[in-house]
């Protein structure tokens, strides 16, 4: 393949999905996808030409033999019950999971270096990821891209619930886009308005995919998978009854990114078929229907590659005015919560509650829990109850923690009865750590990462299994294998747990006092072992002793 042929096959698409909710809130989801055709996985090929794919990440992929990489930075917690299911879920804090190639011999070494390199690329403290918070899930995080390798020795998963997202992370993220923040949808990503939201998440998902263009050999598809890098930003803003793009992002759209093959804005108007709930301007004739998250939704489409979208002012400022109240949101079928029960600093209980809101279908979910080593889990106290009856999981994979080496990993397959609440409880004990192992503010508590609930939820609407290029990005992120269900991943809240603390001002005092007690023991025994009982003869007063000294010199008999 010549360089020109390779260059022609790079592809970039961008879109923005806006979903207005009844309370005046907006869910805005930006998706940027770059398809990169490359075969550097073959022996002896080194890639030196990067056109649309960011070079920093391409070098990372080739150096560490990464097959799939998923990283997300989130601020805030996604309230599934109030806001519905997000297109691409993410847990609070930072999350990183990576599938390595099976040619890698030292996965842990690669993982350590990869986290440090990514920490530099994204200006985040991902270097806190080490073996004490990395797990290897056996069933929960199957590859989202090509490939049927399921040896979970090559998978690594870690979360940092304490990680904060700020402008420092947004700026390098924007640099990964082909147009940067100068053209296209990325001009709306201004940090002052973006971080004002209740929920903000930015993610990078890299995975190998098949090319579906005509004219390519089937064999070539398998040998040379493309890499798809999917960058998405989700944010959730509270606004009033009238909002516009300018009010939300303090910018309007003026042009599409020249490097993009498609650049679209979708506004969800499913709840507003006749315009009685809200009014959207400028009006657009383009409509699109998509089945996303088990629901058929209708969208108004604004195609930024067409000049007439921008109108006379050469800028697109969407305006939406709410007219009426009401409309029910579709209740999400799967929802989970987690909390810590118990009192005191010695023991506690983790309760995970999973709700199945489907009226008549039961389906299995995979619950994955990664608990740090300093919370000692007792697996014999694990109980799973649904509708106040015992519900035994059909598959349990438990890897106990090793102090200061690895965390607990608990994965269970639980069958959820229809329209029910399932509660999973497990008891734990809190450990006393060495004084150097506490974080700078120890009474703030220690974070426990979110649980992950993954499931194939039965869908009310038939999902389409055709993966074509014309589908909008947000509805085609996760590959759909069958029509009757769609994949959902729900993250619970992270927990904040207090541990008993020693007194940090006392190390020298403690050493002295304990050694004193040991010395008292030693001293008593030494006395009794080395000395014998003797009759106490009184010793002469000082004057007589001095006189005896002189007498001894003189050779004269001594005084008594």
């Amino acid at each position: 393949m010549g360089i020109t042929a390779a260059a022609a096959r790079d592809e970039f698409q961008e879109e923005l999905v806006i979903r207005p909710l009844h309370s005046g809130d907006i869910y805005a989801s930006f998706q940027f996808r770059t398809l990169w055709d490359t075969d550097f996985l073959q022996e002896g090929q080194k890639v030196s030409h990067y056109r649309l794919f960011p070079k920093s990440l391409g070098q990372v992929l080739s150096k560490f033999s990464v097959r799939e990489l998923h990283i997300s930075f989130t601020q805030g917690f996604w309230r599934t019950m109030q806001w519905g299911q997000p297109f691409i879920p993410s847990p609070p804090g930072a999350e990183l999971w990576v599938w390595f190639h099976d040619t890698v011999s030292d996965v842990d070494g690669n993982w350590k270096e990869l986290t440090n390199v990514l920490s530099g690329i994204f200006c985040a403290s991902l270097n806190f990821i080490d073996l004490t918070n990395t797990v290897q899930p056996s069933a929960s995080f199957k590859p989202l891209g090509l490939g049927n390798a399921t040896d979970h020795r090559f998978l690594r998963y870690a979360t940092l619930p304490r990680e904060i997202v700020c402008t420092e992370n947004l700026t390098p993220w924007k640099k990964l886009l082909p147009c940067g923040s100068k053209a296209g949808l990325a001009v709306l990503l201004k940090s002052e308005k973006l971080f004002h939201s209740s929920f903000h998440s930015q993610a990078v998902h890299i995975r190998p995919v098949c090319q579906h263009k005509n004219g390519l050999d089937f064999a070539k598809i398998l040998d040379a998978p493309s890499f798809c890098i999917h960058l998405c930003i989700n944010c959730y803003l509270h606004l009033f009854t009238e909002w516009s793009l300018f009010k939300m992002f303090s910018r309007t759209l003026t042009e599409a990114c020249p490097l993009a093959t498609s650049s679209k804005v979708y506004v969800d108007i499913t709840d507003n078929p006749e315009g009685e709930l809200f009014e959207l301007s400028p009006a657009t004739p383009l409509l699109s229907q998509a089945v996303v998250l088990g629901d058929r939704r209708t969208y108004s489409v604004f195609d930024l590659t067409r000049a007439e979208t921008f109108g006379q002012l050469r800028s697109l400022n969407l305006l939406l005015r709410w007219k009426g109240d009401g409309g029910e949101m579709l209740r999400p079928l799967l929802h989970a919560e987690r909390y810590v029960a118990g009192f005191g600093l010695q023991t506690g209980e983790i309760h995970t509650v999973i709700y199945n809101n489907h009226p008549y279908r039961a389906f299995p979910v995979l619950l994955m829990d990664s608990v740090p080593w300093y919370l000692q889990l007792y697996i014999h106290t694990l109980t799973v109850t649904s509708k106040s009856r015992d519900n035994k999981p059909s598959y349990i994979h438990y890897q106990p923690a090793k102090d200061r080496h690895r965390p607990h990993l608990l994965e269970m397959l639980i069958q959820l009865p229809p329209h029910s609440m399932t509660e999973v409880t497990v008891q734990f004990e809190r450990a006393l750590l060495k004084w150097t192992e506490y974080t700078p503010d120890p009474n703030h508590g220690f974070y426990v990462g979110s649980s992950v609930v993954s499931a194939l939820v039965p869908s009310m609407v038939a999902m389409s299994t055709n993966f074509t290029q014309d589908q909008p990005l947000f509805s085609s992120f996760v590959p759909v294998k069958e029509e009757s269900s769609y994949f959902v991943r729900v993250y619970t809240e992270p927990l904040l747990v207090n541990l008993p603390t020693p007194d940090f001002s006392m190390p020298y005092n403690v050493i002295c006092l304990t050694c004193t007690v040991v010395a008292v023991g030693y001293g008593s025994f030494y006395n009794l072992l080395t000395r014998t009982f003797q009759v106490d003869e009184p010793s002469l007063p000082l004057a007589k002793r001095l006189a005896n000294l002189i007498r001894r010199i003189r050779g004269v008999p001594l005084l008594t």
Partner: protein
Amino acid sequence: MAAPLTLLLIVAVTIRAVLFRSSWAELISERVEVVSPLNAWKRVVEGLALLDLGVSPYSGDVFHETPFMIYLFHFVVDYAEIVFMIADGITAVALYLSIQTYNKNVFRKQKYALESDRYPADCLELLRSPKEMFYIPLKVAMFYLLNPFTILSCVAKSTCGLNNAIIALFILCTLKGSALLSGILLALATYQSIYPLTLFAPALLFFLQRLYIPVNLRRSSFWFFTLQYAFIYVGSLVVITGLSFFLLGSWDFIPSVYGFIFSVPDLTPNIGLFWYFFAEMFEHFRLFFICVFQINVFFYTIPLSIKLKEHPVFLIFMQIAIISIFKSYPTVGDVALYMAFLPAWSHLYRFLRNIFLVSCVLLACSALFPVLWHLWIYAGSANSNFYYAITLLFNFGQILLVSDYFYAYLRREHHLTHGLYLKKKDGTEATLVLK
């Protein structure tokens, strides 16, 4: 004497059964003074649950019992309460029989010494009479069974009770003179927790004394017997360890059990000196102080053996006390074992100097432990220093107790050789000092 002993056993079993069925059992089994990461019942159940799940109990850091415990409780986990009550009963009966044998030995030696006129004339009141010694075995059994520490340890189902039973059986077999059984039981005790290794010296001294072999490093008879006994001991230890390998097919239990005891990675608070010390330790010195503290346990064996080579049973008492105070994860069950011996030294009462102070300190500390724990962990109004202070005081009280009894024992021996009423050179009454 069988009837009072049976009555005592019945009373003890009743108390334990009542506590087992009450709501206190849950509370007691979580107390850190009574259970430690090494012998908590919750961890035994957790280890068995992990085995059921197909994961090795030693793959995590929760289970630190030996494979022998897995073997035992795999079958009797439903009858655990009965097992622990039986263990307490065995310990009490073994201590009863051993103190009875010991008293017979002591009386016989005293009779020979009296007949060969080895005692000075004025120390006749120090001699022990059968009347005074008659109830001592029963008192020893009572001190063990009705000691609140033992009852708490049994109700919490701490495996310390089983370890105590093995040590008590070892003492019984030693005092009865069976070197083979004594070696095997000592190997079992060492296999359970390493510290009973120091009991090898007193047991050896007892057998040498019994077989009239002088303790002289130049005589071949001494080495002959020592090697025999050492061979029995080390051989049984190797066999037991080998059998443990075959349970799970791996040597994982060695770092999990013995590595854990020696390197003290878990800093759960207990009544010992290690936890707070290593919680506040500078990382740089950690290895050094681990070595110092562990050597401290084994260090007193040789000097004490040299000083007490004529008195091996008292040496056993001293060794058990030193192990209980200075081991890495002590619990009140360990303290109860050496306290059971105290009635055997009741004739030393007149020479004890600090007994009132020591008993007040120990009582006060036992009462303050749960109070300060509650204030630290639940009320949040105290911090770890309060609990640590009581730990220090409790260990200081124990050290004082043991050294007081040692002083009294040595002083009585001195009086038995030099006379009770000593006079100075000018004829006035003398005071004895250690010089």
